[in-house]
């Protein structure tokens, strides 16, 4: 008997001893930032990838002719300047002559031509993206000048040229991607990690990385991220607002609106939401502040149309008092529409987004005040994509629409012939405006898009809830975390403050 206890004690001691020894045996390592990503990358080839989480990381590896800054403004990238013809049909890009791809190949006009021909399907292959099919020709005037011609003028086109330029003749993008960015791809282990390292040959001194390596761990569990932060295994992590408050230790919490639209979508085609008075009643009944405080611990911005104030230039700031919470008014509108006694509805919510589920719970309570009996229908993300997003087979739903740099990409969702108009909003005037904006001058565009926002609000296309803040927690000596109006973790700006 004594022997057994002895064995157990010995084992425990051996284990503890081992832990202590190996813990001390850490080597001198390069400057590394360890962070997390919540989902696997969809594809390492940027032309085949569409998920915003993937772009958030891989925008460090790939660059386009143009880049964007913290305000979402277009800045020179691989092209140091560009000219647009009077008629808006022809774009001439003047490329930098000092850019080298991560595989050592020099970047020239040939690679840019290859890129746009592939995307637009001008060669023998099928086009890779329908956004580029308006290109009629791509030509290299010399080694560092490229001319792109469009079928029709499109003021949103310049913004599209931030698409990754890839080296001609390189076939392994999907397994070992090669770009021109400040970081090189090192490896991707499915389910585990993505590793990037500093590109010593990077051409732009101002964006030169200050760290040597970025390790991005794929972690789907929020509490795992929190414990990894607390145990010192992560230097930065993206977390929910209420979790940030639980963190103890030396951390800095960064927070910023992320250009997302959290939407309580009402299917405009389905009864009773085909009646504008019902949709307006819903807008009067919902108290957004309660959602912001209750669900997002205050870390969210209220919205009044399908547009976040982060996009300051195009944002219409005159809509905030259109539907101030007013239960009496909501009841009146319901009565006018013939629903004095209310009705039953279901709110279909993807179950993997806890914040949307929580929001639905608040909405259910708020809607009771106008006699609407709402029930929560939790579905899997895959089911949501098919039933709600693709087939519009739903009454109401809650979803977050991720932000875009161009207002056209945000507002086109409500154009009646747009394939992903799952709200099924339909207004010929709105469609006309969206088309008109594409050929309008810059000043006109601003006015048109503001008008579009007003229309969506006045027609009560849905209930526009909030722009939930992105919360990033970093070790307090890790500085330089920068937010963009797009999902992008800029590793080149991060550095450690040494004391």
């Amino acid at each position: 008997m004594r022997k057994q206890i002895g064995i157990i004690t010995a084992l425990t001691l051996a284990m503890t001893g081992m832990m202590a020894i190996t813990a001390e045996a850490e080597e001198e390592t390069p400057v590394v930032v360890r962070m997390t990503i919540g989902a696997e990358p969809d594809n390492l080839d940027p032309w085949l990838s569409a998920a915003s989480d993937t772009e958030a990381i891989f925008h460090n590896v790939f660059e386009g002719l143009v880049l964007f800054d913290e305000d979402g403004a277009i800045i020179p990238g691989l092209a140091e300047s560009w000219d647009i013809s009077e008629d808006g049909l022809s774009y001439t890009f003047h490329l930098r002559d000092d850019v080298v791809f991560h595989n050592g190949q020099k970047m020239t006009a040939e690679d840019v031509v290859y890129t746009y021909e592939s995307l637009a399907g001008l060669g023998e292959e099928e086009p890779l993206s329908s956004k580029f099919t308006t290109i009629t020709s791509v030509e290299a005037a010399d080694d560092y000048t490229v001319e792109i011609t469009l079928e029709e003028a499109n003021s949103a086109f310049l913004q599209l040229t931030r698409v990754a330029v890839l080296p001609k003749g390189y076939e392994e993008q999907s397994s070992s991607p090669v770009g021109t960015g400040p970081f090189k791809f090192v490896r991707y282990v499915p389910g585990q990690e993505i590793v990037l390292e500093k590109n010593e040959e990077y051409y732009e001194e101002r964006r030169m990385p200050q760290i040597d390596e970025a390790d991005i761990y794929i972690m789907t569990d929020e509490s795992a991220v929190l414990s990894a932060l607390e145990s010192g295994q992560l230097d930065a992590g993206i977390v929910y607002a209420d979790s940030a408050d639980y963190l103890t230790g030396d951390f800095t919490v960064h927070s910023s609106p992320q250009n997302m639209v959290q939407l309580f979508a009402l299917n405009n085609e389905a009864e009773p939401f085909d009646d504008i008075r019902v949709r307006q009643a819903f807008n009067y009944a919902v108290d957004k502040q309660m959602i912001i405080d209750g669900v997002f611990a205050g870390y969210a911005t209220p919205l009044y149309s399908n547009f976040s104030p982060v996009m300051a230039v195009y944002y219409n700031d005159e809509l905030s008092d259109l539907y101030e919470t007013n239960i009496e008014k909501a009841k009146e509108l319901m009565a006018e529409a013939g629903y004095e006694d209310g009705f039953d509805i279901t709110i279909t919510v993807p179950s993997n987004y806890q914040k949307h589920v929580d929001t639905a719970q608040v909405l259910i309570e708020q809607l009771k005040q106008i006699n609407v009996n709402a029930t929560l229908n939790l579905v899997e993300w895959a089911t949501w994509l098919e039933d709600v997003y693709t087939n519009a087979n739903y009454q109401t739903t809650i979803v977050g629409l991720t932000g875009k740099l161009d207002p056209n990409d945000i507002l086109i969702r409500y154009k009646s012939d747009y394939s992903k108009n799952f709200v099924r909003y339909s207004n010929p005037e709105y469609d006309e405006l969206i088309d008109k904006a594409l050929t309008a001058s810059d000043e006109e565009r601003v006015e048109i898009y503001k008008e579009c926002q007003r229309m969506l609000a006045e027609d009560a296309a849905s209930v526009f809830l909030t722009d939930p803040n992105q919360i990033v927690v970093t070790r307090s000596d890790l500085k330089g975390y920068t937010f963009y109006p797009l999902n992008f973790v800029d590793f080149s700006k991060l550095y450690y403050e040494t004391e």
Partner: protein
Amino acid sequence: MGYYVKKAVGLLITLALVSLITFGVFQILPGNPAYIILGVDADPLQIEALSESMGLNLPLAARYFNWVRDLFVGDLGMSYRYQQPVSQLLTASLEVTGSLAVVTIILTAAIGIPAGIWLGGHSGKKYSVPLSMLSQVSLSIPAFCMGVFLIHIFAIRLKWLPSFGFVAWSESPAQWLRSLILPALSLSLGSAAVLIRYVKVSIVSQQKQDYVRTAYSKGLRRHRVLYRHVVRNSLIPVITILGMTMADILGGSIIVENVFALPGIGRLISVSITSRDLPLLQGLTMYLAVIVVICNFAVDMIYSVIDPRIRLKKGGAE
């Protein structure tokens, strides 16, 4: 010989049925894998290109037939989600889950067997009560709870061990063990508690057997009777429990692997379902069926080594 043939045929039938059922169930589930992978912002042309590369445009029967045909040449197909061969993903995850299983089994045995023997030898004594209660408690705590608890103590408070991740044995055996201790411990505390109870009951009942009385009357000491005779006869439940635990962990402990962010079979299973990755899930179900059958088979084999009477009985029945 006939015994092995029977086992093998049984395995094949199981596999055929399992694959057919998974394939069928997947057709009922809503959700297009191309949409799920690319998300809400996907371009229609991207969706089309991806669907084509995954072979989703082929009719149902053709897809199943192709899959079975490739299976016979050892090709499990390409995962939709990862764009990598399923066999490669399985091997990589198996390294993680297999390592976890080995460490868990060792810990389970190291805790469960001595504690069970001790309790069995001292049943009814006052001081055995707290230990029994302790095993009852650890039996009732789910593994993921235990995981969170262990992380809090050993990773956050003491900072002795990592709270997530996996390091390959080939990279550093010491780091390998460090990355596995907490998840293995949270899994093994529960199974060790079960083991303790089985071993204890088994020891107590063996002590009432005639051969024990004979041993005592030969003049042997209590200590020698317990370890030489009783323990050996009480090992059968140990093998059963360890076999079950092994099959269980090799099947992927989805929750524990998530809590510790271990890229094992469990993680692969949950990803394959949420992303409607049919080839990957098919590969996984094949693997799971094989694991269960093999573990059962191995347990049978070990029984006959420990207790020759079992082998004799089986031989007689054939």
